[in-house]
């Protein structure tokens, strides 16, 4: 629906709320920045089913290639076999527990990874079915409900728990998605990249929140799409953090970063992650937390 020229947002999912109109947000122990590392563990399918939607520039592999694209499929698989462990080791070294966004195909076919992430104290959130099946408005409402249920069913059967968070593959949503996620019993969603604080979404269901990711800090966006040299990416992470830490003295900031294990988990990139985290975690004033911990704190502060 094209926008009507009236006050506020041109969609019903959240209110217009510029930072200056909000009460100050305080993080635990007076931290200026809440750091949340989101790690997608997503499966790239050999052949996605007919009618499924992929973004035109789905990252991975070398230049776009025709089927069968062994290069892209296996480049993505690197994350599941090698990159995730390297990335989790670096996070652990800095005392950071990850929020793992795990799709249904990974949950179902990689029980080792499910167990490993749980053993390491990560929070696992739902991440759709596969990276080659996005939610979009091409889906009917019934199809979208079915998709969300299939993802949650696989999640529950693999982990024995109900996820609290959701991150759509490639940030994919229809114009119904927040509502359907809330109805499915979820508490927060990571698809919206429009803030530096969590915020409530208006779904009419029990409280439901956005946990916004920093779009430009997403490694696929900056490294894979914009081709930023990894050392520049490292510098950007540090500079971004410095400003958020300063700004966070007045009202707390959320720095939520999306890191793909097949990308920053490569041997030559991992050192940049390590150094960026050293920079952040050595300064004090940082609260490293999982998505649920951040949303719980936020909810408690705002009621």
């Amino acid at each position, binding site marked *: 629906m094209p926008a009507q020229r009236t006050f506020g947002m041109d969609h019903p999912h959240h209110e217009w709320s510029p930072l200056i109109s909000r009460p100050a947000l305080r993080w635990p122990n007076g931290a200026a920045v809440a750091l949340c590392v989101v790690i997608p563990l997503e499966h790239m399918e050999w052949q996605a089913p007919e009618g499924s939607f992929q973004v035109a520039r789905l990252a991975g592999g070398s230049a776009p290639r025709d089927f069968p694209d062994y290069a892209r499929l296996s480049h993505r698989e690197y994350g599941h076999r090698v990159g995730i462990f390297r990335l989790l080791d670096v996070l652990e070294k800095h005392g950071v527990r990850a929020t793992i966004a795990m799709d249904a195909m990974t949950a179902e076919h990689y029980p080792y990874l499910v167990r490993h992430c749980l053993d390491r104290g990560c929070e696992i959130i739902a991440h759709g079915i596969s990276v080659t099946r996005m939610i979009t408005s091409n889906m009917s409402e019934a199809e979208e409900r079915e998709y969300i249920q299939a993802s949650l069913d696989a999640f529950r059967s693999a982990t024995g728990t109900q996820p609290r968070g959701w991150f759509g593959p490639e940030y994919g949503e229809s114009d119904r998605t927040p509502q359907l996620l809330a109805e499915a019993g979820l508490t927060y969603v990571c698809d919206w990249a429009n803030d530096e604080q969590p915020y409530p979404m208006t779904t009419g269901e029990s409280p439901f929140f956005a946990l916004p990711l920093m779009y430009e800090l997403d490694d696929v966006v900056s490294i894979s799409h914009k*081709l930023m040299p*990894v050392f520049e990416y490292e510098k950007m992470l540090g500079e971004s953090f410095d400003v958020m830490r300063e700004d966070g003295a007045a009202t707390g900031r959320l720095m939520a970063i999306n890191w793909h294990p097949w990308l920053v988990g490569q041997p030559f990139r*991992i050192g940049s992650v390590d150094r960026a985290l050293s920079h952040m975690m050595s300064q004090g004033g940082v609260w490293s937390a999982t998505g649920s911990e951040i949303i719980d704190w936020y909810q408690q502060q705002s009621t």
Partner: protein
Amino acid sequence: MALPPDRIDYLPITDRPVIKWPNDARVALWISPNVEHYEYHPVNEGVRNPWPRTPYPDVQQFSYRDYGNRIGFWRMLEPLDKHGIRCCISLNLAVLEHFPEIAEAMMERDYDYMSHGIYNTRFLYTYSEDEEREFYRDCIETLKRHTGKPLKGMLGPAISGTVSTPDLMAEAGLIYHTDWFHDDQPTPIKVNAGKLISVPYSIELNDSSVVRDNHYSAAYFADICKAQFDQLYEEGAESGRVMCIALHPFIIGQPHRVKYLDDILSYIMSHDGVWQTTADEIADYYIENYYDEAMAHAQRLAEASGR
């Protein structure tokens, strides 16, 4: 993963047999120049257009690559020779027939070769199984006739393949396929009959992806090669890793760029514990010492997960 194409069993790097390279090396380093010929007037098979910029010929793009054979290859040899590197050439086999001086230079240095197809403008996508069988026969025969060496592996021409490629490679007696980027170690690839493995080649440390496709500087290419080495060298103390640097003479052999190859090799080769080798040798060694163990271990992991 048991998911399609079900070629590679899941083996997390944290839970698999420990690899010990010869002389307790930490990193098996192989350097793979792509020695190629792109046809002046290729046939467009309808899947991938070899020269999409213009109707054929595309003299600009043709000659940019041919520069690699006339000039770049010879310049690239200087740093390679200086550091005593024995390459594993990713070879368009027709080069042996078109350009004998290149064949001779490679043979003088006792390089190894994996097939990179016949020409880099002929892709496997449209091949029937029988055409693909004939293709392997041709590659094996051509390499043998010119170099006396048996063909052991392949990087698909322009990294192309078919769903049957691993089966047909194994059937033809090849032992390794380098179109897979899922690991820092060799891994078995499941095939109908015989044994085939993946030896990690690189689309990340590759002058074509880094410099040509993605427009990074050669200085950056050198920096990431060193960073890759540092990380793998550290991890290789526990279990051996593979590092491949993929080159293209028309790219790395440019006058303004060649010094960065010297820089990379000077850095890496100054370390102890580097097994400078070829994909042929890595494949032989892995199959001899670790293939069966890796297959059995993957089976145990799958059973422990109840599948």
